[in-house]
């Protein structure tokens, strides 16, 4: 779908990848204002689960490290707490940039097996089919995205929680909740995808 491929820098100090990010990831036009203060990484609740953290990731973008950036766990483990967004002294919308990078990395096939990408696929499928998130549907699609055997193992491991949810009246046992106009929602989403793809093609 991408018309112009994402540039892969061939030498040191090649800014082609950085420029691509600045121009194609929403909010990343502010990245050139990053002064590497580290407020974002220092504010991050899940920093220990990230290989680089946002500060370092942003420097890696400037350094043209495309492969490392798009395979980085930093973009996958963001919990979307927005601490970095409200604290950045240069008003870099860090969370939004990580979201944009995650979308690109998923689309370009960088991390199909990462839990976030798998979970997002399951989630989006529920939204597309039914217009709503059915927690049972999303978790089952996600568990079984690891294969039948692992799916059964995960489903069984989570059975006690599911039973407690059912008992508390917070998980139904009937058909999935759905939007009546799910068909028209699908048409809207298809149109939005088409417009977005057209935008990419004209870049």
């Amino acid at each position, binding site marked *: 779908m991408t018309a112009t491929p994402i540039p892969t820098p061939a030498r040191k100090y090649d800014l082609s990848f950085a420029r691509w990010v600045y121009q194609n990831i*929403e909010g990343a036009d502010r990245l050139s204002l990053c002064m590497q203060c580290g407020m974002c990484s220092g504010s991050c*609740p*899940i920093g220990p*689960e990230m290989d680089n953290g946002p500060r370092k990731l942003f420097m890696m973008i400037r350094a043209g490290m495309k492969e490392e950036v798009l395979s980085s766990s930093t973009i996958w*483990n963001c*919990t*979307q*707490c*927005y*601490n970095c*967004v*409200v604290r950045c002294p240069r008003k870099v919308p860090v*969370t939004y940039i990580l979201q*944009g990078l*995650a*979308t690109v990395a*998923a689309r370009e096939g960088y991390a199909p097996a990462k*839990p*976030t990408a*798998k*979970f*997002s*696929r399951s*989630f989006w499928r*529920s*939204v597309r089919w039914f*217009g*709503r*998130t*059915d*927690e*049972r549907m999303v*978790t089952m699609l*996600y568990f079984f995205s690891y294969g039948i055997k692992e799916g059964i193992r995960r489903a069984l491991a989570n059975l006690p*929680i599911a039973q*407690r*949810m059912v*008992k*508390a*009246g*917070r*998980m*139904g046992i009937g058909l999935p*909740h759905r*939007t*009546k*106009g*799910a068909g*028209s*929602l699908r*048409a*809207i*989403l*298809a*149109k*939005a*995808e088409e*417009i*977005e793809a057209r*935008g990419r093609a004209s870049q």
Partner: protein
Amino acid sequence: MSKIRFTYYPGCSSQGAGIHLDRSLHAISRKLDFELETIKDWNCCGASVGHVKGGKLPSLALSGRNLALARSQSPADVVTPCAACYLNTHWANERIKNEPKVREQVDDALGAGGLTYWGDLKVRHICEVLVNEVGIGSIREQVTNPLSGLKVAGWVGCQTVRPFAGTESGGQYTTYDQPKFLDEFTEACGAEAVPFDKARTSCCGGSVAIYSPEKTLHLMRHVLNEAQDAGADVISTPCPLCQQNLEMYQEAINKQFGDSFNIPVVFYSQLMAVAFGMDGKKDAALDCNMIKPEKLIDKVK
């Protein structure tokens, strides 16, 4: 005073894991004299993971459809109780309102479903409405069953206040640093708000806690530790995912860290329903909490 009317976006959790937030909100709305008219045939907002597979514009279009439906129903403000629903819907609305290109693209996509939306609604979090429109005073006036002696840790979490609290479009009702509104709700109900400054806006791990819980258990433990140290009987929160995660994973946390947590996590609206003297099940939905808030249940009239 005539009833204040809002268009209500309940969000997906209202039909599942967060059913007790929805039920208790409708209950207190009757006492506090505001009306919630649900968006007919609403859809998911995309939560915090949809964008990875869905992309930016389709994610905006999800909120666009809800807003178009809301607008065709009424010009009233759209309110939502869910942190992620608020974040996505408010963000989409502000962009549609302020960025002509986004407005055109979303409207173009909506056209495929026979809808249109041009950004003339206001999207609000229901806590902001309770503070700014209903007022803490009106909440206090409705209390017939003060929750005296109940110690409550007010855990705000992330997306209810970040990044929009303290901004003009976010209603200016609080800031993202040490927001006060949950403690004000607690005290209006006659309960005691315990000190909770370290974890007040701490993250539970959000959706990462659903697909990779092992990465986030220590985050929830941080919240539970402070609540325990402060002697809280219950933790009160506005966020359906915070409520679910913190309740659901206490056993796993106990197992991994050798703790013995069993702290109930309730919604502020459940506290209000009890304090307003309403029914413990039908109105406060206390039967929906997996860790039973015994001390709160004891106070039900």
